[in-house]
């Protein structure tokens, strides 16, 4: 199978997994979620093979243009979720995470994204490309899962406040669970994001551009994202914020991360013009 076909197969498996997870969410069928997990894992295996094949075909890291980066972010998000689902008992995040992954995959497949494996421009010919981009995006994948937990918290908390908690669902417990999961997952992502986005970025910039920091828009937005996550962690750890306020900061922080990933490329001009 060629790389585009594997990508497509993974995409289809993700869609089927999402359908099963939605069945689970709406009809409360545990078995649907278990099968969804298996399909999502199968999709992730094919996706991994697609990425490896891409590396062999192009001869470079699989995140040098928007198509590749979106595909890698989708892969990292699925991988992070598959690891976390069991550990943190967060099955209900599954359907939403899969919808996010499907959105990323769809965006990657859109005709607007050039898919050809182009030879690397001189600035990208470095092993720091591997380290800088992969670690950053894996950190962002954890942020994605954490943000979904925050959104589920907000939904559960709202039901709880309006007294419309579903039958048999102890929403108070559910909301507290999502609140805790959101923090724990973001706390895994934060060191990774710092290492990949800021530290590896600075080391590479020093080697390639002769300056570890240039106030390039992508750099500044990475710093802004880092500040907002820093705010999230400080308000939580030091000031004991929880619940709604905390969840809102997590959502804003993820929006900043998304803007750093997409928005900067299309709206602001700078040194990171290739990625």
């Amino acid at each position: 199978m060629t790389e585009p076909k594997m990508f497509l197969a993974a995409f289809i498996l993700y869609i089927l997994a999402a359908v099963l997870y939605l069945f689970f969410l709406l009809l409360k069928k545990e078995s649907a979620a278990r099968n969804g997990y298996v399909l999502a894992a199968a999709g992730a295996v094919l996706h991994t093979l697609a990425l490896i094949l891409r590396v062999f075909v192009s001869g470079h890291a699989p995140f040098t243009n928007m198509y590749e980066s979106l595909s890698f972010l989708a892969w990292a998000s699925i991988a992070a979720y598959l690891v976390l689902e069991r550990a943190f008992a967060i099955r209900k995040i599954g359907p939403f995470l899969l919808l996010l992954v499907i959105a990323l995959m769809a965006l990657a497949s859109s005709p607007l994204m050039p898919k050809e494996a182009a030879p690397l421009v001189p600035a990208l010919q470095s092993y720091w490309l591997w380290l800088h981009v992969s670690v950053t995006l894996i950190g962002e994948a954890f942020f994605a899962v954490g943000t979904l937990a925050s959104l589920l918290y907000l939904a559960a908390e709202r039901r709880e406040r309006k007294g419309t908690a579903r039958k048999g669902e102890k929403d108070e417990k559910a909301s507290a669970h999502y609140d805790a999961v959101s923090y724990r997952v973001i706390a895994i992502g934060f060191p990774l994001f710092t290492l990949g986005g800021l530290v590896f970025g600075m080391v590479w910039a020093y080697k390639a551009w002769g300056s570890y920091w240039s106030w390039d828009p992508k750099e500044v937005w990475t710093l802004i994202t880092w500040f907002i996550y820093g705010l999230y962690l400080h308000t939580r750890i030091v000031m004991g914020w929880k619940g709604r306020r905390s969840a809102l900061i997590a959502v804003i922080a993820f929006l900043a991360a998304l803007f750093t990933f997409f928005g900067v490329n299309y709206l602001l001009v700078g040194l990171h013009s290739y990625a």
Partner: protein
Amino acid sequence: MKSLIRLLSSVRLAIFLFILVTAVSILGTFLPGLNLYRTPWYLSLLLLFALNILVCTLTRSYPRLRRILKPSWDWTSSGLTAAAASQTFKQEAELEGLVRALREALAARRYRTRELKRDGAVLLLARKRTLGGFGADIVHLGLLVILAGGILSGVLGRKEDLVLSPGRIADVPWAGFQVRLEDFKTDYYPSGNVRSWKSRLTVLKEGNPALTRTIEVNRPLKYGGVNFYQSSYGWNWDEASVILRVRKNGDPAFAREIEVRVGGETELPETDLRIAAVRFVPDFVLDGANEVRTRSNEPNNPAVQIEARRTGRSILSGWLFSKYPEYGRVREAEATGLAFELRDVKADQFSVLQAASDPGASWIWIGCAAVMAGLFLAFYRAPREIRVILEVKKGKVETVLAGQSTKAVEAVRTDLDAVVSAARRERS
């Protein structure tokens, strides 16, 4: 003074500064013209933040250190049951045996335990990953080192572009040595895209070659505290020459190639004409007002404006394009029967090297290492503490345990479960 320190050590100020710095930074990315990040305002904001971090760290790390070295035993079983993660069980067992079993179970989970006897009760204080408690302090100190490194870079850093044609020598003004560019070449992929720019450099110390090295983007040369980066390149179009092919209509035998310097003129052999290259552009384009401009400095569409002169009088003029010969247009004041083609352009290529010394950089890496080590400790090695009180009550031992962790409550709960189930196996 005291209230100032209280203000600077307050988390509220930190939260306020987080929001302010974020907002100002966002503003700066949308108003690039302001160059906000290099203004004293922005720097003062960062320095205030640094001061806040410093005072917070100093005022908080000392009590934390004290708590760890000289723990307080001032807790009661009713206090422990009120903790977020707490367990109580009663069982018929020997007090000593149960204490030993608990200590073993705690040790199996890698806790280090201290013991205290008080009024017939036994108190255990078990801790794990104590160093993790200093993670945040290490992160904060690392950030201060990074900021200091940044200031050092800004004050002491030197940077200069060296524009060099092959064979030329440039002085590195502050370093006391020179570099000579041996050659510069561009490698291409089969598709025609640039693969690399390579500058072969020789370092000259007092005129003598010290070493020769080829540098590329991502592969700088470090010598004597100076880094040399492949930064840019270009062509010296002002001193270019064009190669023209001239043919005569109806005379296939007449084909001449002449080289004309831009701005100069050359005699066309076997005629009484002199050909001038009036103007050259590497990337020809007509702007809105129909004026000739160059779109870039790359030779994407080289074009030359020529003139044929007889005794100083222009009798023919027009533009020739090397990539699009069919678009060449000349206007003749007198019929000459000549056809012109732009065959080639000769221009020296130069390489732009950035020479940079940055004494702040090593501090940045030290600070980064500290930040990462601190984050690792704080989030992946979060400290855990378990407090236990054992008391004999009516022939049974009552054991109250409480787990405590700011960042790993779930993990402490799991530890508690494991320790309790191991200890309950201990019977008298």
